[in-house]
């Protein structure tokens, strides 16, 4: 079966996020009340797996392979079966 996976890869807390900082100052300039903006990457993909649990596990391993453990954390945001 095929699953659609959404994976977020974000900077660890405490690691400087220059992008987030720049976006935040622009948003504040535009009068948005936004704070602590952090910018990360989102990966969307399709994976083959026998079950949702298996797809989750695959997504987890992919996160591990792609995130830089020195600076980043990842979250498996969603796993959905594709029809």
């Amino acid at each position, binding site marked *: 079966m095929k699953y659609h996976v959404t994976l977020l890869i974000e900077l*660890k807390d*405490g*690691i*400087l*996020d*220059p992008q987030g*900082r*720049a976006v935040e*100052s622009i948003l504040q300039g535009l009068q948005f009340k936004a704070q602590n903006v952090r910018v990360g990457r989102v990966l969307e993909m399709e994976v083959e797996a026998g079950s949702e649990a298996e797809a989750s596990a695959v997504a987890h391993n992919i996160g591990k392979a792609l995130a*830089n453990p*020195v*600076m980043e954390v990842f979250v498996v945001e969603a796993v959905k079966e594709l029809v």
Partner: protein
Amino acid sequence: MEGTLPPLLQETGIPLHEYQEIVRLLGREPGRLELYLFKVMWSEHCSYKNSRPLLKLLPKEGPAVLQGPGENAGVVEIGEGWAVAFKIESHNHPSAVEPVQGAATGVGGIIRDIVAMGARPIALLNSLRFGKLEGPEGDRTRYLVRGVVEGIAHYGNAIGIPTVGGEVYFHPDYQENPLVNAMCLGLLRVEELKKSRASLGRPVYYVGSKTGRDGIGGAAFASEELSEENESKRPSVQVGDPFMGKLTLEVTLEAIRRDLVEGVQDMGAAGLTSSLSELAHKSGLGIELNLDLVPKREAGMNPLELMLSESQERMVLVPRPGKEKELEALAAHYGLDAVPVAHTIAPPVFRVLHQGQVVAEVPTFALADCPTYTREGQEEPGLARLREADLSALPIPSDLQGILLRLLASPNLCSRAPIFERYDHQVGTNTVLVPGKGDAAILRIKGTRRGLAVKVDANPRYSKLSPRLGAMHALAEAARNVSVVGGKPLAYTDGLNCGNPETPQGYFELSETIAGLAEASAALGLPVVSGNVSLYNEGPNYRIPPTPMVGVVGLLEEVERRAELGLRKAGEFVVLIGSPEGHLGASEYLWVVHGQEAGSPPPLDLTMEAQAQAAIRNLIERGWVHTAHDVAEGGLAVALAEMCLPYGLGATLELRSHARPDALLYGEAPGRILFSVDQAHLQQAVKVLEAYGLPHSVLGQVGGDHLTLLLPKEQITWPVEALRRAWEQPLREVLP
């Protein structure tokens, strides 16, 4: 407090005798925070405790030197009221941990050192060392190469300073411990030279990014061996922000141009601790810092974290009396924090306040006066035997033609375009000799007819087999590279990357390297004006070869009178300065073809070296020579091939010598320079060489699309296209 001492010593890793010295200097036991201030300031990185006595050997004076070692960067006068500031700095350990950010922050850090002198950075260079590309280790090497190159490009391109040169070597001894050194060059008006100084009672401003928990303890960390047990000590990764870097640079330079500041200091390794205590110490004053005023990125940072943070993109500015508001307005214009976090005081102490309490108070001289060490060195056993190996019995390969293709395709000799194409090498529109076009980069100075030539060099194979001779070669070669484009070498900066100085071998390599540099400096008349020492590049199972990365800066009075390395005109004559025979010892050929790293690096006659360099500069200055190239790794055949590649033009040349053909084609020797000259000037050029007392030979003529070499007993021909194919590909596979 007393009771907590033993664990505290364990925690900080300060040796007992240094602790006793601290107690003596203070006249009391230090508190925890105070002890940490000593820990970072007395680290090798900040105190040079193992290298300072040795560095004293280096000649530091010259007529053009405005500022020698001791400030953020060295400064050399270049005429018409202009001066150039430059320095090299290592970021080896951070780059091993996180290649992209490690390299990026290395670039950012060296830029701030140049800016702190009042100079506008105009060029960046880098000197990189990696392990093997082949075999199972290749994956990690490629990961590091990609990351480091990306980091350098990311920071340099965005901040808008061209990366105009550098060098890259692959050698198995760097497998566990890559080296990333960055060099920056800046231009200033002589009267705008700034130092790290403040007068009494002045507010001291913190300008730039907010402070976070970045790289806590990084300076101390950089001085420790990287090992598994150390894992927990790893600081949180520092992230470079070239955008903030650019704003900080503009604020600082504008403040200097408008004469708003009396002193400037960058905040580099050991952050607030080092920048403020050194500023006070150099000014013969004390300083009081209020941590509550420090702009913070994260909540709840304690004094220790604030004092040790290595957050990037921060500067220290001391306004002139009455200019405080103007400085604040200037920073606000660029959207930066500018806060008077400290002020200078008469008692020569570094006093730190936190929430109304004095949390540390130590004499500034005590932080600066780390005990220094002179040790006994001893050469690595077995190395002498390797160096004295008899290479005369080495079989002469039958396929001399194919060897050139192999050498051109070897990682140390192949095209660097896949790397430098990722660097903006033209921003600023001053780069008149771009990477790949010449042995050194040339930057023109707008508004004058002058130009600067710059190159960084070091041959790890030479230094491994003979640290002293290797260091001499590094300086000779960097200077030669500057000379062959037409620049007169003025001074140099050196990044000394070595092993653990506390071992006899590590100390031997460091001291021999410095001794070699000192000897070559004196002979070539080149002072050192700045540099960096990165020690402890060693682990339980490895030690890097001593790697003195020497960055030479030279002046062209007429930037139009310069040479590049490509043969451009059919019919021109190719002339070799020096002997056609090279040495096999420590050569790239010996390694690539025979799999050996042995023998001695070629002998170096510094008098002849200086003469050869003066002669080629003379020929370029006269406007007779527009193409020149030094003969380096890979020997004559490789150098000639490199001259054919830029414009796809070949040559037919005769090498008259009875040396073994492999030594003739691929052997190495210093002081050798190839150039081309048209018929009209050939005789005169030869006369110049004779006047300099230089051996030389006219090898033949430029033309066609083949490189043909006539040896006494055979003739070898390569299509230039075939040479190009071999040379262009290898690094493309690493950096597609």
